[in-house]
């Protein structure tokens, strides 16, 4: 099972998971496959934010309804695991899940 599919399966409120290349700003993979078009603004903005090498390894943004998680991988800081989710009651689990999968990737 791919990391993105596993993330989507284990985070029930997940709307989109993606691998981002922060060096180029490209989306290397996205799940589900049509999510990139549906959440274009969220993805494009998140890419712009994480493209700066000054950004820390982990960033979580909360809006009234949504959670944006950006996690750099330990082995390659330009490789970023991104999760867009509905605001869930257990944010800690979602963030830990993204971190764990990014470290294992």
């Amino acid at each position, binding site marked *: 099972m791919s990391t993105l599919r596993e993330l989507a399966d284990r985070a029930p409120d997940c709307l989109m998971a993606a691998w981002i290349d922060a060096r180029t700003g490209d989306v290397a993979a996205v799940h589900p496959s049509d999510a990139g078009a549906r959440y274009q603004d969220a993805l494009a903005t998140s890419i712009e934010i994480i493209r700066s090498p000054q950004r*820390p*390894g982990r*960033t979580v*943004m*909360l*809006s009234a309804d949504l959670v944006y998680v950006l996690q750099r991988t330990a082995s390659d800081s330009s490789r970023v695991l991104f999760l867009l989710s509905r605001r869930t009651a257990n944010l*800690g689990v979602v963030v830990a899940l993204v971190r764990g999968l990014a470290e294992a990737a």
Partner: protein
Amino acid sequence: MNVSVTLPAANQVFHALRRVAADASGALVRRGAGGQLAGALLIDRGRVCSAITKGQGQHLSDALVAESGALTPAQMTELVAECQREHLPLGETLVARGLVTLPDLRRALFTHTCQALEVAIQADASPWTWVAHRQQGYDPVASFAPIEVLAGVHALSKPALAGAAETTLARVATSDQRGFAIRRGAKFPLAQLRCEDLSLEALTDIVVQAEEVTALSATLAIEVTVTDLGGVACATWTRDEVLYVLLSDGELAFNRLLAQMAATSISH
């Protein structure tokens, strides 16, 4: 006291203080057009001890009388004369004789320093220059972190906004957290809570990053951003014209801060 501090002039102080090494002792000095001393900021091991300004209306003794509540101006005049005659330090003498408490003394020194610096900022004078000296020995109780003084000066020009920012920080922060509030576009804080050990360099880095993320994420209506700064978790949000920063250290700081911010109403 509600006066107008011009930000460019105040930013000069900020930049001058930023260049002072953390363990340096000396003075930042400004001179008027005729070469006379317009203002000086005395620094002891990176901490601000006092500000001296030509033309400052209130003396330290006035601030001490105001803080004390038990001292009359006449008693203070007498005591100042005695201290000058006997070469005694005024503050320590007041505390030793039980006329002023240590917190009162600290508040009076702080108010006097901020007011003097505010007057120096407004003076038409040269840029600040650094004059090093080796004399040390100010009690940390009687000196202040640069961030404290800068926030104190900023608060003189925006007392209502600074008061609201202080209230918000005190409401949101737990007892083991630090935080500061900064007007959007400003270089130094409007209010701070337990940030005395935060360097001006670190403060600038945090603010630059937070401002960039806030601008980029404007279309997403982000309420709060939490980042991991390597052992320190940082939450940032904006309200009105103010950017708030809350810092949390320790084990699981990131998850704790995230849960705290998710549960906290920051919109009012």
